[in-house]
């Protein structure tokens, strides 16, 4: 079921931009998106802004200097899914005919923390005992490897593929190629995850203009349709939970496939939440791109790399495009839209018609993840 259309997209380069303000970073992305859609500020009827660490009224602070205040502005916080959750609100607002043109911004400035692991909530029991995001993923990775026979070498292959794509994306934070040996030899963060298997922290913003499909066509834009927009949260369990698979991602993607009336076999490109290399491997399975325990074979065959069956993270993913938390979900949409329009140059997936983006977010005790958003786009 078509919910809405994306009429324009824009993003900043991702990376360390400590000399800029977060508002300036957000404005650049929004201006690019409006220019891409061919609309002026007067066309925008509503704004949703996703950010996790941007602070109060981040949307208003971005829009103030553009003279775009007065309209409804809603700020959305959902950890790494903040931007994707903001997009979902816009999609359903357009579907409900509440507005014809909505701007969605995802923005973050992580250099303000000075590097290291992301700050987590102090009331969380696991955080107090030493849990950090790399450890959350590392423990899942070890269990996954224990159950499936996947090895650290497979994780390194994921990182090599991410860097190959990152080298083809001028907006990516990391644009260098690496070898399996270099990945395995980089410093240990939380074993079995080495530095090159972990996404970097950085700054950046992405924005999209969401319209009804009819309105986008009136403008002469080349709209990309949004066929599904799903948000779910992790289920709280004090007991045992299978950490070698992602129930949350399975559930959210199943709902998205149902809503779009497609299956994983119909996807031409996929953008997944590869905060850590092991997560990408597990999400191949959770999204149904392969069967249970077959993720390692999939990366070994090169199915998800350039020229493969279903390229995953042609943008470079969180690993190389970068992961300014709240911006990521919207940046995935920017990649999907430009791929479906055939405008991504050296990383273009030829003839791509259907794309899926997947964003999870948040480490909190007892949950798979705080949130998971899945979008299906098509031309």
């Amino acid at each position, binding site marked *: 079921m078509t919910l809405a259309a994306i009429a324009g997209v824009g993003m900043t380069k991702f990376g360390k931009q400590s000399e800029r303000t977060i508002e300036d970073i957000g404005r650049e992305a929004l201006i690019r998106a409006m220019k891409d859609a061919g609309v002026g500020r007067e066309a925008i009827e509503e704004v949703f802004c996703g950010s996790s660490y941007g602070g109060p009224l981040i949307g208003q602070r971005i829009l103030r200097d553009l003279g775009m205040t007065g309209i409804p502005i809603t700020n959305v916080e959902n950890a790494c899914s903040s931007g994707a959750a903001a997009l979902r609100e816009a999609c359903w607002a357009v579907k409900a005919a509440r507005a014809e043109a909505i701007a969605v911004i995802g923005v973050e400035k992580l250099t303000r923390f000075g590097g290291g692991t992301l700050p987590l909530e102090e009331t969380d029991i696991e955080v107090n*005992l*030493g849990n950090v995001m790399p*450890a959350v993923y590392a*423990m899942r990775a*070890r269990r996954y490897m224990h159950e499936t026979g996947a090895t650290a070498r497979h994780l390194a292959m994921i990182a090599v593929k991410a860097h190959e794509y990152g080298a083809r994306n001028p907006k990516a934070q990391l644009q260098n190629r690496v070898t399996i040996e270099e990945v395995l030899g980089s*410093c240990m963060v939380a074993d079995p995850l080495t530095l090159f298997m972990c996404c970097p922290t950085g700054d950046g913003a992405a924005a999209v203009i969401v319209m009804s499909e009819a309105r986008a066509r009136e403008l002469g834009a080349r709209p990309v349709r949004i066929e599904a927009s799903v948000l779910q949260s992790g289920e709280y369990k004090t007991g045992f939970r299978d950490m070698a698979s992602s129930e949350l991602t399975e559930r959210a993607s199943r709902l998205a496939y149902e809503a779009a009336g497609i299956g994983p076999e119909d996807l031409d490109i996929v953008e997944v939440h590869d905060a850590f290399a092991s997560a990408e491997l597990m999400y191949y399975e959770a999204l149904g791109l392969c069967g249970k325990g077959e993720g390692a074979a999939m990366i070994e065959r090169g199915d998800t790399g350039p020229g493969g069956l279903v390229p995953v993270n042609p943008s470079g993913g969180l690993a190389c495009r970068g992961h300014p938390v709240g911006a990521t979900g919207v940046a995935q949409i920017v990649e999907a839209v430009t791929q479906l329009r055939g405008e991504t140059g050296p990383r273009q997936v030829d003839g791509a018609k259907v794309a899926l983006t997947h964003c999870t977010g948040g480490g909190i005790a007892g949950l798979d993840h705080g949130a998971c958003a899945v979008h299906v786009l098509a031309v």
Partner: protein
Amino acid sequence: MAMARKDNLAEETAQAAEGNVAYFPASRPWTEEAGVVRLHGSRCGGCGGVAFPAHNACPSCGAESGQDAVLLSQTGTLYSFSEVHVAPKGFATPYVVGYVDLPEGVRLFGQIEGRAGALRIGQQVAVVLGPVRAEAGSAATRGGAGGGGSAGASVGRTVISYRFKGLP
């Protein structure tokens, strides 16, 4: 319970009296007798679900009362683990963390004594008490150096909590 804990944590208690030690959680939801540490959980009178930390309402069936105190087993099975080399201020790296499954159906997160090399998934571990971090800076949390709950006289205290020890 409180009496037993004091007897067996004499050293820590003495340090605490000098302001050198803090406990997490501050309520000290554990009992130690003759070297055996058991955590305080809750069991739902409705569905029988066991939880740690203890809940006032049952997260499994939604019952809003009837959560009975229960002492959890001292030993459990290691579900997974990782040796952490990059961590917020206050944690001495490397340190090992893991998830431990108790027979009551509760999965605990915590630090594990020693290095990761000797550990394996599926092995038995025991709940013990020991230092998990220093309060100084408290950069593990959103507020950073100035925003945590560790301002003033508490800076620098060693935080004692439950953790795990691998069993042969």
